[in-house]
């Protein structure tokens, strides 16, 4: 699978899909092939969510305006 539609999903969508997959597997009503495919999809979704969670950096910037009040730049803000 070269193009993974999961990369297009938002964290929320990915998590929701993962929940569906887990529930589907827990009922144990899927065929073996289907179960394996679902499991692999679940693993991909989990990796995707983890990547999104890992991307959690606090960056705080202050908007700087020109004379017309338009935002032209930002500079780091230390509000501590």
């Amino acid at each position, binding site marked *: 699978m070269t193009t993974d539609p999961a990369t297009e999903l938002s964290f929320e969508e990915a998590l929701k899909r993962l929940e569906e997959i887990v529930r589907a597997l827990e009922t144990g009503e899927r065929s073996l092939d289907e179960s394996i495919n679902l499991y692999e999809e679940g693993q991909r979704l989990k990796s995707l969510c983890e990547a999104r969670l890992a991307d959690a950096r606090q960056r705080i910037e202050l*908007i700087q305006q020109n004379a017309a009040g338009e935002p032209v730049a930002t500079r780091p803000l230390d509000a501590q």
Partner: protein
Amino acid sequence: MSENTPEYSVSEIAGAVKRTVEAAFGQVRVRGELSQFRRQTSGHWYGRLKDERAVLELAMWKGVAAGLSFRPEDGMEVIATGRLTTYPGGSRYQLIIDRLEPAGVGALLAQIEARRLKLQAEGLFDPARKKPLPWLPGVIGVVTSPTGAVIRDILHRLGDRFPRHVLVWPVAVQGEASAGQVAAAIAGFNAIAPGGPIARPDLIIVARGGGSIEDLAAFNEEIVVRAAAASRIPLISAVGHETDTTLIDYAADWRAPTPTAAAERAVPVRAELAANLAMLHGRLDAAIVRGWKLRRERGLALARRLPQPRNLIGLAGQRVDDLSERLPTALSARLARVDLRVTNAAGRLRPALLQARLDRSVERLAGSAARLAPALARPLNSDAQKLARTGAALRPFLIEQRLASAAGRLEQAGRMLDTLGPRQVLARGYAIVTGPDGHVIASATAAAAQARLTIRFGDGETPVYTSPPAKPVQGSLF
């Protein structure tokens, strides 16, 4: 009237009145209804304060106006604090305002309520206008003062929950300039193009700490409410404390009771998400493993129900053992039975019986032989007579006649053959020309192509060699 009464010039009397008025009313508080209160281009405000029976002229210099916590509107009940003075050039007296405040919270609330009803009638607060908040915004725009507890609280709470990229648009959150700046900031965030040098927020938080209704006045301003309603980026309002409600709250997509609550609504808790994800991952693994186990058990259960090969062989082996054990017994039993029958038969076998049957057969044979010769002779005689008759009927001359006729025809055919055959023809002077390969050459063209020919005459063959015609000599052209 006495001529002794001192005489004033107009200026003198105006000055005297001015001094008297200012001395007597240097600091007064006057309650009344605003009327024709307007800001001039100079920045100063002029108007009137009135009640049922009287009117008082008002003047408010722009420095005082800048500190106002509310927007003065005609018809509003206010308390003006200041000093009375006169305007000698117009024979007028007026109140120079040092401080202007609504006549109690009720007056201000009534003003806000009237504005709310007006904007509501325009549909600015319709639930259908509310946009869903992003579940996990990547960039959050915060419109607030860049200093103070509010921004610190928001940033701390965001950092605790899910660190994000935050853009702070600095504004005054109080005073005359506040409303315009807040409105411009909301519009400014919306004007940022996606993919530009400055990140476009996925969510806007408009925040201010708690304060009096006058302190929060900017967030009741129409210009701010309209900017919030027009925002295409989802917007959370977080102005004042939980009990404070400003008009921007009605236009916002979500109203947070406090700035901290806004941060909580803005992002989920990363640690909880991680825990939830880990839990789901665990369930995923457990489910697949349980699936395997279930299938394995099912397989084993089926396998148990299959007869064991060992048992199958064992049973067969047992039968073989059983049969092989019974085999000698069965054989000897059968032998015994056969033996018994032989013995019985032998007992009944007596030579006399055999002799009697033999005698009877001999008798029948003799009888048959006696009848045999006459029976044979009869058909033989009959055949001999038939043969004699047929022989007499045969006549050999018929065949001889046909033979003579056939010999005559054969001789005639032989003569015909000689006449037509090539030998006779050759004897009459014709010859046959053949090529080296023995094929007949039947034309001059074919003969010219051969260097050697054979001519066959009636009495034999002779070879001939054809010589090519002499080539004409080619004369030189030069």
